[in-house]
């Protein structure tokens, strides 16, 4: 069962799942068996971005280098390019993204996942990601700055 680090900033509660790694941009990557890595948005990123209207993820078979565009989301506030935290090939896209992208907001660490990538170099790419405690610290600082608490 997933455990979370949690903080409240202003009136908002932000959670960080402890069973995965994070990119600086706020995407998470969770290894699932041999080289398969599930990717999604952190709770902080989805809350800061707003309600998702549309999510367009690159199709199954698309090859990605770390830093490539994995997809885009359009929210009520902004359009965001999602940068892939790893390299590899997309082997599965969350079918909910087509008609129910609100799952990104409702459950970003579970049903709101974006895609599964067959990692080309998980060991190398994961070294560039940050652990949940480090991400939690960065996220909290950023949230507090945005709330004007610092």
């Amino acid at each position, binding site marked *: 069962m997933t455990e979370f680090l949690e903080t409240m900033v202003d009136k908002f509660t932000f959670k960080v799942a402890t069973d995965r790694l994070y990119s600086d941009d706020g995407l998470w990557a969770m290894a699932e068996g041999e080289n398969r890595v599930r990717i999604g948005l952190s709770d902080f990123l989805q809350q800061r971005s707003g309600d998702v*209207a549309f999510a367009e993820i690159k199709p199954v078979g698309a090859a990605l280098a770390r830093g490539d565009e994995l997809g885009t989301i359009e929210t009520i506030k902004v359009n965001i390019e999602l940068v892939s935290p790893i390299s590899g090939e997309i082997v599965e896209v969350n079918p909910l993204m087509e008609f129910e992208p609100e799952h990104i907001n409702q459950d970003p660490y579970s049903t709101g996942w974006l895609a599964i990538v067959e990692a080309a170099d998980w060991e190398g790419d994961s070294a560039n990601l940050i652990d949940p405690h480090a991400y939690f610290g960065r996220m909290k600082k950023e949230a507090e700055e945005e709330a004007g608490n610092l």
Partner: protein
Amino acid sequence: MTGTQRVVIVPCSGIGKTYGTVSREAAYNLTQDLRPEGTKLVALSLLVLGDEQACADVAESPAVTIDGCKLACASKMVAQSGGRIAREVAVLDVYRQHRALKPEGISELNEAGQELAQVLAEELAEFVDDIESQDGEGDHA
């Protein structure tokens, strides 16, 4: 619907939010232009303040709530005030069905946003007609 009973329209009160503005524009279009006789606009803020007339309106008539975000304040407040929600609408869901009409602006909506509000108002006008016709059938029974 019996006699003077109207459908109560309760939009989002989110000030400074584009989708909240769309909800209010749609409510104005519906209650002032499309179905002024069959609808009544109730300000969400009055329900929050416990205004007697506003609470009585939602308690006595079917309500249509138009929410600007997932917090769904309009729907929650009507329910909390003892109202009967005949239909809940979220502006985001309407936008998903009309992607070309991306609303922008806050105090003044862009053209697409105004069009989205009009589309929503027209959908709700049909819904109000349906309620009226159902009640009309009931009156004759």
